């Protein structure tokens, strides 16, 4: 099913407008391959099906899109409004505000309110000869709405109702809990799920095909595993990797290790080494290192390892999250130990979020995990 979502369409509906300033070659692929129609949106079958209906009936509720980053929320609403209004009416019918714009209560009261109460202008004749539904209302897109203040959200409440006849709102956010209840209840909610591996792989290979770069299965797997269902991240990594590989002379092939380096992932060998030195046995990691077993797990040894990791410049959150994966999916540790380790990781994550010193906390995690498993 998912295969025909974007396969043929993107090639035919490539925009040919002259107003495009950026050379397509220099554009980020994330922008270049943004879905042009909502059919192109990968994976979100349910949402797409519902929105398809609104296209034909041209009636739209207020909407609230939420879900993790890189799942297509902004793309969907942009594609939808483009399909509704066409390129010519898009400018005066859609107001897009995001976190880079000032969005305090003053802006809600003035800019948003003013735009909301304008009567929609008459439909301009589409220059590209197509007919668009162009329903008699405007759309206000509030991107990253969870970073709006409570007050600003409060001020929106009445505006949304008063001008509902001529204006529809679409709130886009990552955390639905940060949207105040009265706003959420005025919208129909759409949840965007992280992309499943198949659709992500399909999309990535489509882009690779369009860009004429050769990528094989291990690279796609590496992209998907490092991006955790975030398609935007996967695409950015792919672009960076292809930049690096094509800029060398002669062009080299992309390796999975490149992807890991770009993503800032600590190489497995280093993490395994670190884990084994704090007492977590790593499968396949035989004791090839020449240091005696008795030295492992001593304070000084662990401290030295932590110092080394810090000097290499790896980020603490990354180290801890990879260590977490290693411990939680460990084949031989019992559940009790795993749970205790999980507690430690959680605490460390909170501390790092509060801005704690990285070296101290990596050391802390290492020492405590060592204590738990030994």
């Amino acid at each position, binding site marked *: 099913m998912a295969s025909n979502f974007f396969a043929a369409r993107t090639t035919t509906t490539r925009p040919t407008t002259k107003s495009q*300033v*950026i050379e397509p*070659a*220099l*554009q*980020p692929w*994330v*922008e270049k391959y943004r879905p042009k129609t909502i059919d192109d949106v990968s994976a979100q079958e349910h949402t797409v099906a519902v929105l398809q209906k609104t296209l034909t009936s041209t009636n739209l509720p207020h909407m609230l899109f939420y879900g993790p*980053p*890189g799942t297509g929320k902004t793309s969907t609403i942009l594609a939808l409004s483009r399909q509704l209004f066409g390129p010519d009416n898009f400018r005066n019918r859609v107001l897009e505000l*995001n*976190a*880079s*714009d*000032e969005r*305090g209560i003053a802006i809600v009261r003035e800019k948003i309110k003013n735009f909301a109460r304008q009567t929609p202008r008459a439909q301009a004749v589409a220059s590209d000869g197509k007919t668009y539904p162009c329903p008699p209302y405007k759309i206000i897109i509030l*991107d*990253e709405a969870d*970073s709006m203040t409570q007050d600003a959200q409060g001020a929106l409440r009445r505006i949304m109702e008063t001008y509902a006849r001529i204006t529809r709102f679409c709130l886009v956010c990552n955390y639905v809990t940060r949207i105040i209840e009265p706003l959420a209840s005025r919208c129909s909610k759409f949840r965007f799920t992280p992309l499943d591996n198949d659709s992500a792989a399909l999309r990535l290979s489509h882009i690779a095909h369009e860009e004429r770069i050769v990528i094989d299965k291990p690279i796609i797997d590496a992209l998907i595993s490092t*991006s955790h269902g*975030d398609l*935007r*991240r996967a695409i*950015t990594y792919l*672009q*960076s990797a292809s*930049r*690096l590989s*094509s*800029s*060398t*002379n002669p062009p080299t092939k992309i390796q999975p290790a490149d992807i890991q*380096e*770009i*993503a*800032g992932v600590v190489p497995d060998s280093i993490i395994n080494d670190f884990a084994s030195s704090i007492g977590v046995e790593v499968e396949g990691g035989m004791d090839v290192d020449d240091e005696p077993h008795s030295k492992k797990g*001593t*304070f000084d040894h662990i401290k030295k390892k932590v110092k080394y990791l*810090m*000097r*290499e*410049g*790896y*980020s603490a*959150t*990354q180290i801890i999250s990879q260590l977490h994966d290693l411990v939680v999916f460990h084949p031989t540790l019992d559940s009790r130990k795993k749970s205790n380790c999980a507690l430690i990781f959680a605490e460390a994550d909170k*501390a*790092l979020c*509060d*801005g*704690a*010193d*990285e*070296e*101290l906390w990596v*050391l*802390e995690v290492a*020492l*405590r995990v060592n*204590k738990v498993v030994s």
Partner: protein
Amino acid sequence: MSLFVDQESYFRPRTLDTLHYHHGLSERLKALAASGDFPHMLFYGPSGAGKKTRITCVLRQLFGAGVEKLKIDQRVFLSPSKRKLEINIVQSNYHIEITPSEAGSYDRLVIQELLKEIAQTQQVDLSAKQRFKVVIINEADSLSRDAQAALRRTMEKYMSNMRIILCANSTSRLIAPIKSRCLLMRVAAPNEEEMMTVLKYVAKRAGFDLPPEAGEKIVEDSNGNLRKAILILEALKMQTPDLNGPLSIAKPDWEVYCYKVADLLVSEQSPARVMEVRAKLYELLSHCIPPTIILKTVAERVVEKVDEALKADIMHWAAFYEVRMRTGSKKIYHLEAWVVKVMSLYKVLFRLLMQNPFD
């Protein structure tokens, strides 16, 4: 006379070709700068590893020698409450360098105003090598969440006129959307051999020979921080011109002072001692030594001197109180709390040992 570190004839590399280590990274940067398809970048790594040096080299590669004509500017921003914020800006015709954390909690404002202004103006110089300007944001990891959120869309929208280079010590405090929009460049600290080579190089350029023992000592002392290593080298050279014989690398005063505090802690545990330590901590704080550094230095010193059984616990509480210190507002309380904690741990262990000496 300028320092060894800053002078091109001694050390400071100005182009990507003359960088001393991480040649793979330099090759990549060079290729990227040549390809015309230059992404946003995020340089991260420990301090003294050469992030800034690499960034200036990249700029030079991108724009030619013109980027070295710098001027320093001061811009005034008005906060919503009409307070004036002054921000120092270093700029050339092709790039601009800001440290938004100077503005404290108003960094979002600086980001929004300044970046939008740059982003919306195109490069006017027709002879410029690139169509875009580069914005360097220093200390990106101390940007507030709001400021980072404000960067998100700007980075995508104005890609045609502007590239952003972020410079940070760690990526932990950057939000995921920013990281996913940048090409990450990890600049690791140089290892011991690399540092040795650089030191020898500097010595040769300055016209003297570096005895291997002196070199080793400097490398050991500087802990991966190349800037520090070269500064030490220069200081030593001033002290003992032939660099032979026993060398004593002068520790900074505050470090010596921290060691004193640690020694006090270990040698006696009593309320009177706590007061004594407290006075010393106050002294350190009033000389603007960051509390985290004090805690880390003292803890590391204490750990060297105590029994193996205590080490893990002492570091645990150091980590614990360090977070408290960040979230709280009065630093001295937490430093003191840690001191008392360590003392009590020490006492308890000591008593246990006294009770069953044959255990």
